[in-house]
């Protein structure tokens, strides 16, 4: 890990990859470090709003993360209809039939690595390493809420309608974002996700 300053009162910790970032995120939470915002990402963890960033940097540098076990998150099932407009494009990229793509997606247990892009937009990891997907070269001006998409190694569900370049393979009726709720995101980081036929 490399600990970097990000302005006066924040640290950005570079990790070897998602696994280490996930472990560090869990460790910061386990230790109850006082942060205003704690933002895990694909290979980093941001700690924002620290009273003593230099002291915290020193502290983190001494942590041993190997021993950390990520606590199993809550499991959410998302009933999904696999009729997305890009199902054929994904099948072509993977050299599979459309039904094989759907079966692989259904057989995978995903985990929310982090959120970003839009409120409640959860980057879910879990597909085999060789099953990555190139984004659409021509992003859509509007992707409907509930669309299930793939990009790079990730799967996500659009919580609200927005522009987007992910390859859309299906849709779910489940509401992923409710700003009026105490727990506004259905899929916060750490949540386990399974797609089931809807």
């Amino acid at each position, binding site marked *: 890990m490399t600990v*970097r*300053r*990000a*302005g*006066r*009162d*924040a640290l*950005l910790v570079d990790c070897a990859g998602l696994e280490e970032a996930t472990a560090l995120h869990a460790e910061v939470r386990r230790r109850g470090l006082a942060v*205003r*915002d*704690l*933002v*895990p*990402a*694909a*290979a*980093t*963890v*941001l700690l*924002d*709003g620290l009273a003593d960033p230099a002291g915290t940097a020193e502290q983190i540098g001494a942590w041993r993360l190997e021993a950390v076990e990520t606590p199993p998150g809550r499991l959410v099932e998302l009933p999904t209809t696999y009729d997305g407009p890009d199902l054929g494009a994904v099948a072509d990229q993977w050299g599979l039939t459309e039904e094989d793509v759907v079966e692989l997606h259904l057989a995978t247990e995903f985990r929310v690595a*982090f*959120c*970003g*892009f*839009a*409120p*409640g*937009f959860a980057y879910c990891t879990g597909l085999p390493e060789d099953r990555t997907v190139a984004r659409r070269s021509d992003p859509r001006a509007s992707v409907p809420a509930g669309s299930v998409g793939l990009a790079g190694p990730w799967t996500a569900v659009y919580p*609200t309608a927005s522009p987007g370049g992910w390859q859309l393979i299906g849709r779910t009726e489940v509401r992923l974002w409710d*700003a*009026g709720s105490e727990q*506004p*995101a259905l899929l*916060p*980081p750490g949540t386990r996700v399974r797609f089931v036929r809807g």
Partner: protein
Amino acid sequence: MGDAASTGRPPTSLRVVSAGPQTTVQDCGRPGYAHLGVPRSGALDEPALRLANRLVGNPEDAAGLECLLGGVVLEAEASTGVAVTGAFAPVRVEGRLLPWGVAVGVPRGGRVEIGAPTQGLRVYVAVDGGIDVPPVLGSRSTDVLSGTGPAPLADGDRLPVGAGRGAPSDAEAAPVPVRRELRLRLGPRDDWFTSASLAGLEQATYTVSGDSNRVGLRLDGAGLERARDGELPSEGLVLGSVQVPPSGQLVVFLADHPTTGGYPVVGVVEPEDLAACAQLRPGDAVRLRLLR
């Protein structure tokens, strides 16, 4: 103020006669939700909002109005108190020109008219009792990036105002000139750029671009030369991050910034200089001073 006033004012409302180019409700934002992809939002010139609130006797973090380029007319449905701060703009209450930074009473049916700023860009209005729209995730702020919070004001809107104290401060404040130099603390990704181009940051003069908004202050000028190729996986961003996209145009991320981004952040603007970022106008010249 007489005895009746010191017992406080009941909740009331303001009628938006003219909303101007872009007026939004802002308080000190909704930090703590970045991990869910929710921008922090809040007043871009936070010291100006806090001052306006102090002047009318509100808690400093009460919700007020942020008016881009003025052009706003408000009508009080009951007598209330207001203070206007931020950009230097002509403000009239019942047709009478106000000095900058004082709290004044507005009678029932009275109008507050905010003209176009002659210095700065964003005017802040505090009302005794605060703007009392329903909070979303702990804040009444409008976040223009994600659409969280109330919609920007439209002509004819009625804005609820909370119960007031009716005890404005008799303090006066003076406008501070807008800083033209932003202090930049290098990192976290300064090592993505050549040391020569980092040194050049301090020599260059940048121009505020017209496509700046609540998401970011965009600066045209000398780009930065990368010391390495490749892409950065998306990572968390802090307020004031200066991102360098391939176009080379620097973007200083302001309150409605995305919570993560994939272009390298060369440095972060010091918190005290963010108010200037809210008030710099398109075409203004800006310099950067590096803190290492």
